[in-house]
């Protein structure tokens, strides 16, 4: 085959709108793009002029799947800007809600979006007919994670009770005990999940790249920390721009990013590669069972890394629940800002990777806002993977090549509506 054109219009089972464009002329790869065609959302422009208290509610609408993550990063940015230090209890509750979202998103991704590829069906809907057990298990686990978010923040998509400085609502002790019981029981489903993924064969493809994630000395970082690279080096959050180095490309309404190399990866696999030593022991042993030993360079293994994180999140949630119940949750009014002007960066490891929010606030009103989204950071890396993958499979049929590429893109779990946020940036091209 000397000439080939692949154009996947609107990749399915991903969040948002993206196209894969591959053009092979005379056996040479001329073009290999992941085009993000999502409509630009203008969130940074929308934040300008709004009161700081609205920021987390507006930015959670960047994405329905990582809404709690956006809210968390947004609140941390505001809090850093206004000198608010949340209490220990607030941190624990935020982490719990955050784990709820990690679980919800990862379960959605591995079961409903990725698993159909490996099980040879078009989607979760025929899968529900073919393997009802698997789908029911996924729905059960998803309901548990959704319910966790709900008792803490009202709901998972667009959480309500999370506010600058704390919470406007607290779960009751009964609710915590009840959900704790269910978390314990879910370990059975976890085992089945691990077994399922152990049985799946990942495409054999590897490409080494730079892996970036937040890192903390005493825990597997999800909220706050410093930026760490597998190529070495750490940066304080405030220096995030020197890591992400965003630039625009014409075929995409989302920005690309690069650090030391031409691209880098964020997300579950990057986190495992950077923070393996901080995983919960159970999660570590699951990683071993699934053959995940850092540094893992197969991007298709992102889904496996997500399974490991599911285990981690369940175990850590149980610990936090114990701590909260043990110390008996008390009513705390949100911590009031010390000042109404300032600049701050907030960061979180949302399901798809490192998320930064950066606000400048004057007299309580947001003057400037910037959000750097995980999928945007991954785009250049996905394209680099595609460019390396395509020549190795050119002997296959166009349908097979398309399938491999779609699976690759899907493995990254791109959150395209997030990434099409577009900011005020220098154009590098």
């Amino acid at each position, binding site marked *: 085959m000397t000439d080939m054109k692949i154009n996947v219009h*609107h990749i*399915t*089972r*991903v*969040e*948002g*709108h993206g196209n894969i464009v591959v053009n092979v002329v005379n056996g040479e790869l001329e073009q290999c793009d992941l085009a993000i065609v*999502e*409509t*630009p*959302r*203008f969130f*940074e*422009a*929308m934040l*300008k*002029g*709004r*009161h700081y208290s*609205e920021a987390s*509610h*507006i930015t959670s*609408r960047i*994405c*329905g*799947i990582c*809404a709690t993550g956006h809210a968390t990063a947004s609140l941390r940015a505001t809090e850093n800007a206004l000198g608010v230090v949340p209490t220990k209890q607030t941190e624990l509750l935020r982490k719990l809600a955050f784990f709820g979202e990690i679980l919800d998103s990862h379960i959605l991704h591995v079961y*409903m*979006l990725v698993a*159909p590829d490996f099980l040879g069906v*078009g*989607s*979760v*809907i025929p899968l*529900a007919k073919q393997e009802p057990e698997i789908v*029911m298990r996924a*729905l*059960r686990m*998803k*309901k548990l994670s*959704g319910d966790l978010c709900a008792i803490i923040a*009202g*709901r998972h*998509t*667009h959480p*309500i*009770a999370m*506010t600058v400085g704390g*919470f*406007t*609502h607290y779960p009751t002790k009964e609710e915590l005990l009840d959900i704790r019981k269910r978390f314990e029981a879910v370990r059975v489903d976890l085992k089945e999940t691990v077994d399922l993924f152990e049985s799946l064969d990942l495409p054999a493809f590897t490409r080494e790249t730079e892996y970036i994630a937040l890192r903390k000395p005493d825990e597997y970082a999800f909220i706050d920390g410093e930026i760490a690279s597998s190529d070495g080096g750490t940066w304080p959050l405030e220096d995030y721009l020197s890591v992400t180095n965003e630039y*625009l490309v*014409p075929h995409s*309404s989302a920005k690309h990013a690069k650090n030391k190399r031409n691209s880098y990866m964020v997300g579950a696999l990057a986190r495992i590669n950077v923070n393996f030593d901080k995983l919960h022991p159970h999660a570590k042993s699951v990683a071993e069972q699934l053959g995940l030993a850092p540094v893992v360079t197969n991007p298709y293994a992102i889904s496996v890394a997500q399974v490991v994180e599911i285990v981690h999140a369940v175990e850590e949630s149980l610990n936090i629940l114990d701590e909260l119940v043990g110390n008996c949750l008390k009513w705390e009014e949100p911590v009031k800002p010390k000042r109404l002007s300032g600049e701050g960066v907030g960061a979180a490891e949302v399901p798809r990777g490192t998320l930064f929010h950066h606000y400048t606030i004057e007299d309580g009103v947001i003057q400037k806002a910037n959000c750097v989204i995980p999928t945007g950071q991954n785009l250049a890396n996905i394209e680099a993977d595609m460019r390396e993958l395509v020549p190795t499979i050119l002997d296959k049929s166009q349908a097979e090549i398309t399938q491999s590429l779609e699976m690759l893109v899907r493995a990254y779990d791109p959150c395209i*509506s997030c990434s099409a946020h*577009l*900011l*005020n*940036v220098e*154009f590098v091209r």
Partner: protein
Amino acid sequence: MAQYERYIRPKVAFFDFTSCEGCQLTVLDSLQTSPELLDMIEIVEFREAMSERSNEYQIAFVEGSCTRPADEERLKTIRSTASLVIALGACAHLGGINAIKNLRPLPEVRADVYGDKADWYDTYAARPISAVIDIDGFIPGCPIDRDEFIRVVKMLLQGRQPIIPDHPLCIECKLKENVCLYLRGKICLGPIVRAGCGAICPTYGDGCEGCRGLITNPNLDSMKMVLEEHGLSFEEVEQKLSMFMAYQTAGIKSEAEGATS
């Protein structure tokens, strides 16, 4: 809805425009509590969750606002294919969060964001889909309420026009026996906003922000007075009302001033 029709396992398609896809996610979540849904409707297109596609469907749920001229074509195709088009969520129903950008002149917003590459991307003032095509119903909320989605599906299956509450949120908030946020020193748009969400925001300690849109007969003047009495400046009142309802409160005035090329 002009004519009532009874549906037996209708073909149903989901489409998304400018949005966070949280409403589609809520639809997926509804399967957790209502798995029978898959027996009652045949989902033929749901890009977020499945690869299968179809050009044949009776009911279309459309999520997201229309934010660029190119969207209009797609919306019209959906309209001409489906017997029933239902707006799913605040973006499609009201314009929602997306319409905040309409509050400033579009050229300014575009320049602000794209710099000298403004013509790379296609955009205009965000609008509800009803500004582009006729719709047969809507499910309000940001995101939609899971139970309300199921309720609407049931009504569609029965051949009924979906009934969405048109009374103020306070009614529902009191049924939940919440202590009014105004008595807790906060503010809330409950008295002028459509109920149906179970007053979830006040229940979780946060004032209603109006994601379900205004009731048919809101007493806006009186509401503004109440907000001002509770310490909001005129601008803050306007801003409160514009979080989800910027399209309604400001219209698409900015469009006239800005180029839509």
